[in-house]
């Protein structure tokens, strides 16, 4: 008997069956009473409906009593029992049915909200193909051992983290980065579980399987963030702690005063702070889940609430506003007649291409940071030959020989050391380049200067868009913090549209500036990526770490981590945070207004038990549905921000 009872009461599917059964019995009861005039049959059917729906409620109520807790189920049980005692079977049936039905709807809606992310994990395939002893074997994803070779067919979900050993494919990484555009993966690239190979065939060496994948870590981390209580929630729980007992007291007082059982029981029914209790958690779960889907990890409800209130933003320059890597931005031949200097993407003249090739040969053995962009640019023109012999002079340049020619690449002073004459017009050009924050080097061959190469750290594509959007969102104070000198910083800041610049800052200088902004009365968010930003990220009210290329320490210190280099995620995170906080306020309002209206309605005798329960359950469902709207939040903000230049995400640097 106990077993059967247990079975009936406890599975969610059965619970829905109970709801349907109880509802059917109520309808049948009415039909019997009204149409056939069989009052006795009606009461029997209604009583059956109460027992069927009420058994599960009573179980929870009983357990609550054993834990010394006054639960919502206890209130409903007392009210139902009371209604049965005074012979009001219809009210008792309606209350239990509405409560069960409402709870069932609420549970399924909450499950959808909670699973915004977890469903990504479930979308991983049920089997994968691994190479074992020379044969392709199909196994379960969790049975793959790290180090094994895994085959990914075109169109297949990737179920392990791994390194591409062989093959090529466009991979949809939106599950990890929120970026809709697929990324090309070649040999040596890292791929993540949860992503989808769109066209090619890949052989991977598995590095992470099961719960040890980047995606699993993200989901785990997001869950922890969702579990952290928002400050508003704590206030509400304090309120709820005395609200329910207070209603019970009120109900008892009214009963003793008026001996109106119906009124006292109705008070019990509406005495559950159902809508208020979930007014905050639902938006927080939905908001953080939505942000995570879009490639932003917000580490908890508290951070979400603070983010919504920020009034100032400080940004690190190198690696955050800029790409953090120098690029060849300027190529100017001194040989051609009309050389006005070109930006790199424009077609280069023959003389310019020649100069670049010579420079690349000289740099071919160099590990210098400025050599890499020169080599990268030259390789776009074709293979680069190796110098026969080369000689690096630290901080000044490199001298090399190739097929009998002497090549020099370096600073103006280095050219002087090599005895290469530099005209005053060239000096002027170098100075002009310096003003734009560009590092200029000269290229010379066989004693004659060929031209100038300009290398600069360029701003990220969306930097100015981000600043514009933040200003639109009302962030009035936006400051750039950098360790670089002011002149370089000013040029970039001018391009991006930032007026407040603080240059030549050491890490503690950045921290001091954040403190100063806070003393000015601002709630400050700081965006950074490197170890040197960590103190400032920690000091700021909200630290935002850039994921791609970012360091683990910055991501650990930060309150919000962006999975990609996309700067537009900063205003998007702000929009989601504000939408969430707005949503919480709406929910609290809905809950309090409903509670007050119900209380007034009951006291003035306008609301009965069934009506009270209906309103109560409706308010709960409205609150959950309102919170769920956040699963689509941020659309307006991102609508015109699509089709960004593709950047390779490096989620691993953040989460490993």
């Amino acid at each position, binding site marked *: 008997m106990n077993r059967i009872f*247990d079975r009936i*009461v*406890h*599975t*969610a599917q059965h619970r829905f069956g109970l709801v349907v059964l109880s509802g059917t019995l109520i309808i049948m009861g009415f039909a019997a009473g009204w149409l056939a005039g069989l009052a006795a049959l009606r009461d029997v059917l209604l009583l059956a409906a109460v027992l069927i729906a009420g058994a*599960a409620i009573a*179980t*929870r109520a009983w*357990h*609550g009593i054993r*834990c010394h*807790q006054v*639960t*919502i*189920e206890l209130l409903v049980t007392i009210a139902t029992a009371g209604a049965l005692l005074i012979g009001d079977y219809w009210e008792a049936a309606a209350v239990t049915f509405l409560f069960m039905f409402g*709870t069932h709807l*609420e*549970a*399924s809606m*909450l*499950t959808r909200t*909670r699973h915004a992310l*977890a469903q990504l*994990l479930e979308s991983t395939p049920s089997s994968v193909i691994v190479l074992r002893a020379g044969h392709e074997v199909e196994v379960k994803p969790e049975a793959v051992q790290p180090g094994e070779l895994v085959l990914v067919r075109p169109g297949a979900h990737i179920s392990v983290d791994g390194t591409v050993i062989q093959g090529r494919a466009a991979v949809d990484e939106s599950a990890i980065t929120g970026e809709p555009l697929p990324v090309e993966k070649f040999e040596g690239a890292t791929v993540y579980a949860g992503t989808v190979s769109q066209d090619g065939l890949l052989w991977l060496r598995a590095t992470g399987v099961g*719960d040890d994948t980047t995606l*699993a870590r993200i*989901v*785990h981390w997001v*869950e922890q963030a*969702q*579990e952290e209580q928002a400050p508003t929630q704590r206030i509400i*729980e304090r309120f*709820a702690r005395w609200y329910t007992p207070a209603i019970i007291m009120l109900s008892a007082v009214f009963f003793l005063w008026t001996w109106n059982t119906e009124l006292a029981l109705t008070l019990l029914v509406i005495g559950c702070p*159902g809508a208020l*209790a*979930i007014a905050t*958690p639902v938006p*927080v*779960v939905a908001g953080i889940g939505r942000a995570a889907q879009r490639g932003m990890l917000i580490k908890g409800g508290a951070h979400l609430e603070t983010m919504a209130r920020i009034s100032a933003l400080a940004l690190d320059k190198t690696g955050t506003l800029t790409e953090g890597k120098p690029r060849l931005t300027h190529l100017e031949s001194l040989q051609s007649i009309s050389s006005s200097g070109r930006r790199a993407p424009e077609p280069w003249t023959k003389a310019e291409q020649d100069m670049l090739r010579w420079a690349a040969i000289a740099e071919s053995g160099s590990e210098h940071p400025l050599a890499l962009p020169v080599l990268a640019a030259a390789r776009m023109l074709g293979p680069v030959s190796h110098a026969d012999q080369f000689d690096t002079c630290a901080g000044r340049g490199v001298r090399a020989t190739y097929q009998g020619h002497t090549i020099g690449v370096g600073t103006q002073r280095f050219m002087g050391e090599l005895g290469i004459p530099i005209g005053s017009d060239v000096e002027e050009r170098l100075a002009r380049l310096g003003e734009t924050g560009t590092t200029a080097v000269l290229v010379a061959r066989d004693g004659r200067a060929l031209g100038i190469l300009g290398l600069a750290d360029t701003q990220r594509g969306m930097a100015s868009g981000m600043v514009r959007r933040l200003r639109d969102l009302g962030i009035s104070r936006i400051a750039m913090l950098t360790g670089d000198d002011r002149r370089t910083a000013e040029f970039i800041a001018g391009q991006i549209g930032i007026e407040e610049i603080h240059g030549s800052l050491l890490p503690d200088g950045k921290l001091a500036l954040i403190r100063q902004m806070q003393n000015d009365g601002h709630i400050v968010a700081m965006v950074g990526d490197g170890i040197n930003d960590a103190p400032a990220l920690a000091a700021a009210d909200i630290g935002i770490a850039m994921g791609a290329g970012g360091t683990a320490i910055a991501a650990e210190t930060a309150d919000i981590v962006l999975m990609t280099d996309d700067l537009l995620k900063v205003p998007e995170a702000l929009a989601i945070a504000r939408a969430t906080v707005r949503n919480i306020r709406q929910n609290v309002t809905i809950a309090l207004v409903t509670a007050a209206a119900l209380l007034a309605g009951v006291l003035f005798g306008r609301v009965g038990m069934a009506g009270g329960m209906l309103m109560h359950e409706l308010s709960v469902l409205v609150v959950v549905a309102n919170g769920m709207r956040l699963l689509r939040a941020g659309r307006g903000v991102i609508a015109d921000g699509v089709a960004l230049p593709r950047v390779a995400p490096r989620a691993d640097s953040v989460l490993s």
Partner: protein
Amino acid sequence: MKTILRSQDLTCPSCTGRIEKSLKACDGVHDARVYFSTGRIEVQHDPGRATADDLIKAVRMAGYTATTGTLR
């Protein structure tokens, strides 16, 4: 040993305390945390004295369903 259970039944934050109590009352359970926001139930237990099935039964005693979860 840590076992993760998941419940789709949590509709009110106050039920978490009851499930925790029910779990902690089990022989072999050292600690239990129930999170309303995610429906995650985290149990530290001695698998020799309390199996995953025992844990699910304990949750059921409090009036809620749970299944063993996969994620940490």
